[in-house]
């Protein structure tokens, strides 16, 4: 989004957007029409930025809640496997646990 100076000296508000992978410039208008479009775009941009910020914070909050539980899961899985190995079991083809023979 930008104001473009025309050859005759006036300012013209333009918007750039992607259409079928190409950047297309849309000429919106000059004077009060351009001003209004610029203000609307600025508000939309601000809203998008705020939404993105809120979503980022929400994700960070959820990740912070998930991390200690993931850690608990990983560690308890390791402890369970260790206890099974220590008791003489082994994992057959990464599947079921079997007791070693002769133990």
């Amino acid at each position, binding site marked *: 989004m930008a104001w473009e100076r025309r050859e005759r000296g006036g300012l013209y508000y333009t918007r750039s957007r992607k259409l079928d992978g190409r950047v297309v410039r849309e000429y919106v208008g000059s004077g009060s029409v351009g001003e209004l479009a610029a203000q609307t775009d600025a508000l939309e941009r601000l809203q998008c930025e705020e939404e993105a910020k809120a979503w980022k914070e929400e994700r960070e909050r959820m990740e912070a809640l998930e991390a200690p539980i993931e*850690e608990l899961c990983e560690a308890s899985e390791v402890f369970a496997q260790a206890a*099974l190995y220590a008791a003489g079991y082994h994992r057959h083809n990464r599947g079921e646990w079997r007791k070693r023979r002769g133990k």
Partner: protein
Amino acid sequence: MVSKKGERKAAVEGTKERGEMLEEFKGYLERAKKGDKEMLPALRETLDQMPQLARKLVDPAKQAEYSMIKNYAGDDLLVTETMPRTLNLMREELAGPNPSPLEELLVERVVATWFQVQYFESLYAQNIRNLTIPQSEYHQKRLDRAHKRHLSAVRTLAQVRKLLKPALAQINIADKQINTTG
């Protein structure tokens, strides 16, 4: 009073310490998996320290659980009051009488992952109308991971119970139930 910065620093250090401890233990386990019998004493020694190690892992998970309860309940004081009781009841029921430290840890994991599934489901249900497609996909993936974690937690607890606990045989003598190991 400990500042927020101090709390964060302590949390980071705690995570680092737990991470190092876990990596060391994983090293023992990997060698034991390859049949290195010399690792068994170290493995057993670490397992003997289970209650202390478990506390280090469970405390941060409980803090996360507390935060989730606060978010889950919102302004509903009834849920705020009853949810911890429900979770404790679940813990008691799952642990049964005389649980080993490993069982306690696994029970803690089952309860934590169960509540996480409830929490993520409710969060998704509450926000579903306001989510964009990528946000919705993000929630779905998070929920799927939570489900997998919970199923895995239940499976491991059942496996450990089946293989490491001597089977209980129930005998009734003169109308009295006696449980004995068989």
